[in-house]
């Protein structure tokens, strides 16, 4: 009997129901679905919703950058690039770090261009985590760090931050969370969702703890350019931190290029080459069209960035003062484009408030607990939306408060 006939016969003898779920890896099964997703589905069912739930700029990519992307296509730039990314782009990134933060990165092997910052974060975790390694993640924070750490085989250790501390993580808290297994600390300031920024002195204290315990730092600084009243301090610019930190950055927020998926990581050659090893197999290289846009952005984009930052800053003040006026306690965010008001005075949970706000007033916000347990009692309101929409949204939030 031939092999194929035998297997056909087996299928007849033992008709089995196929359950594809069983093929899904345990590790993936254990990751909870994103809380944002659930909310997103709710919003989709409704019409006339004003959304303050968006984590991206409401500006279109500046025209000169789009034009550069189009021109690169016309010229026929559609090939792979070096795994590290186009050298010209890396040289510009290097120049930018020298100029803005006085840190030197060699464009040859200390800079890796990635498909968005998300890829860079994933690579960083996978490059440094051994099974069982712990990674400290201050919360509330962007939703992907914890699952990425888990997928890389590590254990995320969340550390809560509080409004009393202006949502800054303290050196003392980090020190307390460190165990023998701690491999790295994640910093993400300016912070999504709180808008918190770190002062240089806070970072210096953290640098001491990090040195003492000899751990690595992954600092996601994608909102760095969106810092109001003062300049952003790059973590690797602190003495002794260049070697042990991987700085993640990208074009999505500063240059309104979210959909073009362009990010990068800078760090010591040892860490960057480890990340590149994974990147070359998983991604090969970031899309060349986006990289061409990135070159234009770094060459001629400063004016447009400043214009957008000024506009965000105005909206920021408008929203924060509006929220405080209606009695919602809102700390002043000094970075990114989110306000993070407390709704504890209403007695409702974040989820309840957000759901009622959506159903009764058609305003979408993201409940704070999506970003970590300590975000309970808060809402993330993005002010990356037009002034008219912001004012209308504020009026609707107030209407909900009045009806409670």
């Amino acid at each position, binding site marked *: 009997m031939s092999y194929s006939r035998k297997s056909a016969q087996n299928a007849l003898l033992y008709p089995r129901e196929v359950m594809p779920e069983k093929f899904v890896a345990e590790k993936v099964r254990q990751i909870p679905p*994103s809380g*944002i997703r659930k*909310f*997103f589905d709710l*919003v*989709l069912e409704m019409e006339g*919703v004003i*959304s303050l*739930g*968006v*984590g*991206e700029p*409401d500006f*279109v990519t500046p025209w000169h950058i789009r034009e550069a992307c189009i021109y690169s296509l016309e010229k026929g730039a559609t090939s792979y690039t070096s795994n590290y990314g186009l050298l010209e782009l890396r040289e510009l990134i290097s120049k930018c770090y020298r100029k803005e933060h006085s840190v030197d990165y060699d464009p040859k092997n200390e800079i890796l261009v990635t498909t968005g910052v998300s890829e860079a974060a994933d690579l960083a975790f996978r490059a440094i985590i051994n099974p069982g390694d712990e990674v400290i993640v201050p919360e509330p924070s*962007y*939703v*992907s760090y914890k699952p990425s750490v888990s997928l890389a085989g590590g254990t995320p250790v969340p550390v809560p931050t509080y409004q009393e501390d202006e949502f800054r993580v303290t050196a003392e808290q980090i020190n307390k969370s460190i165990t023998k297994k701690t491999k790295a600390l994640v910093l993400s300031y300016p912070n*999504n969702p709180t808008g918190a920024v770190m002062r240089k002195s806070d970072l210096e204290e953290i640098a001491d703890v990090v040195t003492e315990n000899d751990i690595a730092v992954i600092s996601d600084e994608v909102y760095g350019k969106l810092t109001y009243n003062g300049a952003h301090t790059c973590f690797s610019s602190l003495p002794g931190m260049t070697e042990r930190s991987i700085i993640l950055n990208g074009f999505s927020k500063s240059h309104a290029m979210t959909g073009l998926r362009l990010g990068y990581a800078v760090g010591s050659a040892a860490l960057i080459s480890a990340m590149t090893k994974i990147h070359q197999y998983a991604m090969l290289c970031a899309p060349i069209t986006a990289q061409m846009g990135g070159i234009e952005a770094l060459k001629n984009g400063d004016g447009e960035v400043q214009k957008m930052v*000024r506009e965000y800053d*105005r*909206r920021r*003040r*408008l929203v924060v*003062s*509006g929220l405080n006026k209606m009695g919602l306690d809102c700390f002043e965010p000094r970075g990114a484009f989110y306000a993070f008001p407390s709704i504890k005075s209403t007695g409702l949970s974040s989820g309840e408030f957000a759901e009622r706000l959506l159903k009764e007033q058609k305003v*979408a916000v*993201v409940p704070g607990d999506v970003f970590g347990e300590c975000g309970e009692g808060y809402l993330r309101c993005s002010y990356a939306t037009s*002034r008219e929409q912001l*004012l209308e949204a504020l009026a609707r939030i107030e209407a909900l408060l009045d009806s409670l």
Partner: protein
Amino acid sequence: MKEILEILESNPRIEPGEIAAMIGITEAQVASKIKEMEKKGIIRKYKTVIDWEKAGEEYVYAIIEIKVALRSRTGYDAIAERIAKFPEVRSVRLISGGHDLSLTVRGRSMKEVAFFVAEKIATLEQVQGTVTHFVLRTYKEDGDVLFEKERPERLAVSP
């Protein structure tokens, strides 16, 4: 000061209270700064941008380039100011290049605009010659695009 002007330039109807919230000073300070700038003539006036076509009113615009023969020591100012007095003339500019003055003229029909130029402008003593360009369509005016604005479709909720 510059910030207040930038905000008012984009939308003069934003209330001083709102401007105050946007730039982090008091409402009274905003109001007094605006008053001061109005007095000094920094803020000359507040205007409304109207799409007349949509309102059912048809207007014809033309750009007129003029070659001027200077006769007196009064220079270009005298002739430019004289031309500017016609209500049909919407703008007058001294320009470099092949011509000296550039005007925008508005009328109810091409005929009306053409006759206005022929009878009132071309006949002026210092005007050596005119070239009339009728405007067929305006795509951008004073920094505002007049065609369908880009509306990126963002997801309603994203991380």
